[in-house]
């Protein structure tokens, strides 16, 4: 039995399955609590109270309204799934699924941790990594366009049209903005990109003390510490920081547009288009659009974190292969079990780091949503075609020149 379980192919199958199930559960939980965070943060920003009633059922314990997402999910599940008479039934039915699936598919190439028990924490370690991400996220627009068209309603139709034109104005600069990263790192494979950043520093930071370790700090090896702190200043890194920053800004803005978040939520536009593409949907159909938007936010911020903010890595925190805590092993345990426990601990810390970074980006997205008004239709296209496209294109050349001439 064990021989079968640990033969390479079978091992890959069941570990991948386990990772998929756990990640899916985590992400769906995160999706519903992002909705809660959205409501709570928007309330706090607008001097309101926000959801604070639903807590543990049948008791008076409210727990800041943390039960709200569960109650919302129950409500949406129990509602009637109403299908208007004149819709195109097949496309009407399939559209919500098409918006929910791509963001979840993106998650399978994101390295969400270093390794647990020696198993790398990425579901599909494929070499085309980021290309896969772009290919799949672009499919998300089909759900919206089909929903808009199949609903046979003018508001939905306008929403769908806006969505497609928004996508063609942003997809280009989004793709171009990440090219400098691959010029620097030289691979499209996302786990390798994170590994590079864990060793050579996050791409977004202008300073990185190379080789700095807590171990030498604890040992009192001041010359090594000072040496690594000074070695952090490097002309090349500082110059490369400029194109990286431009890339980062363009990419983040493109992700906002890609996920239909507020400065660019033209397809939805509650105030103009009733509800945009999902006007005619009810019950779980609507819920899938709604949750699909939040899942897209999560996978989008996952991509931002992976590309620019070092993925699961964090300064001074080792990856899941480390067997000691900053050079010390656990007391009262045999060396083998101590090593296992410590590497499990670091693996979990890495996963926690990744999700903490994602939550940070999500909170930023929510913050931006409740700050900015919506861009007008032509402003968005202008921004996409006249500004970000050129900026991203020029940025590639800046990065290439720096890489070529600065040693």
């Amino acid at each position, binding site marked *: 039995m064990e021989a079968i379980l640990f033969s390479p192919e079978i091992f890959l199958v069941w570990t991948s399955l386990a990772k998929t199930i756990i990640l899916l559960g985590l992400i769906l939980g995160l999706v519903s609590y992002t909705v809660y965070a959205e409501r709570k943060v928007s309330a*706090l*920003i607008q*001097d309101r109270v926000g959801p604070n009633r639903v807590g543990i059922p049948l008791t008076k314990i409210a727990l800041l309204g943390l039960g709200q997402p569960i109650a919302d999910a129950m409500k949406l599940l129990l509602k009637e799934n109403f299908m208007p008479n004149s819709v195109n039934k097949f496309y009407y039915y399939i559209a919500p699924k098409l918006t929910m699936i791509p963001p979840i598919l993106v998650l399978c190439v994101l390295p969400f941790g270093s390794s647990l028990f020696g198993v790398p924490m990425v579901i599909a370690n494929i070499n085309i990594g980021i290309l896969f991400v772009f290919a799949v996220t672009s499919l998300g627009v089909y759900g919206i366009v089909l929903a808009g068209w199949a609903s046979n309603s003018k508001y939905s139709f306008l929403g769908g049209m806006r969505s497609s034109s928004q996508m063609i104005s942003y997809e280009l600069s989004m793709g171009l903005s990440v090219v400098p990263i691959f010029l620097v790192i030289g691979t499209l494979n996302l786990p390798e990109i994170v590994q590079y950043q864990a060793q050579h520093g996050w791409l977004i930071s202008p300073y990185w003390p190379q080789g700095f370790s807590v171990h030498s700090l604890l040992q009192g090896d001041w010359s090594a510490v000072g040496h690594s702190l000074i070695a952090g200043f490097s002309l090349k890194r500082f110059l490369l920081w400029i194109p990286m920053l431009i890339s980062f800004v363009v990419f983040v803005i493109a992700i906002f547009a890609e996920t239909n978040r507020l400065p660019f939520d033209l397809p939805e536009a509650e105030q103009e288009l009733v509800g945009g593409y999902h006007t005619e949907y009810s019950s779980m159909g609507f819920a899938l659009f709604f949750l699909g938007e939040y899942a897209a936010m999560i996978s989008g911020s996952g991509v931002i974190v992976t590309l620019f903010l070092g993925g699961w890595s964090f300064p001074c925190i080792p990856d899941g292969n480390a067997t000691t805590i900053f050079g010390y092993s656990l007391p009262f345990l045999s060396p083998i079990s101590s090593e296992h426990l410590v590497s499990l601990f670091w693996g979990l810390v890495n996963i926690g780091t990744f999700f903490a970074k994602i939550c940070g980006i999500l909170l930023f997205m929510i*913050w*931006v949503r409740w700050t*900015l008004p919506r861009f007008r239709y032509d402003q968005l296209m202008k921004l996409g075609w006249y500004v970000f496209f050129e900026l991203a294109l020029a940025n590639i050349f800046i990065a290439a020149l720096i890489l070529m001439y600065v040693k």
Partner: protein
Amino acid sequence: MAYVIPRPKLNWKERMFLPVFVAGLAITWKHFKNRVLGRTKVTMQYPEEKWDSHLPEHYRGAPTLVKDEWGRERCVACQLCEFICPPRAITIHPEQIPGENKWEKVEKRPKEFEIDMIRCIYCGLCEEVCPEQAIFLRKDYSITGLSRAEMKHDKAKLYELGGVMTGLVNKWNDKK
């Protein structure tokens, strides 16, 4: 004089969006921070906190009937309130006070006195018009019921809500 509305020319900072974007974020951050630190005044959490202790003296709540300090019902069933009531919420059936009663000289009293609280608009005209000062708007505002019948306040309910009011009209006392 023709008034020309000037169209402002945006400078390069404003056209770049990013500085104004950061300024906007700062504003929302300020609100967020003040709200989290509890410096912002927010809506009252209604069922837990209530206005009751802050209600002003002139607050117009549910109309009620009152008795005087000797336990006599002040209403003499003159029906003025019934006639003035704009939504016609009040229904009064008067009766003669029987001879053996201590307050026989008052002659009339309501047999039934009903206020339909679904109709009542809390205008207070009944209180103003009442010559006997028998009907008063009290401070009860949360009038609820599960049926239309429950929302009709009958005489017993009105006296229960109204209680005793002392020291205003003593018109009938010297004639008893």
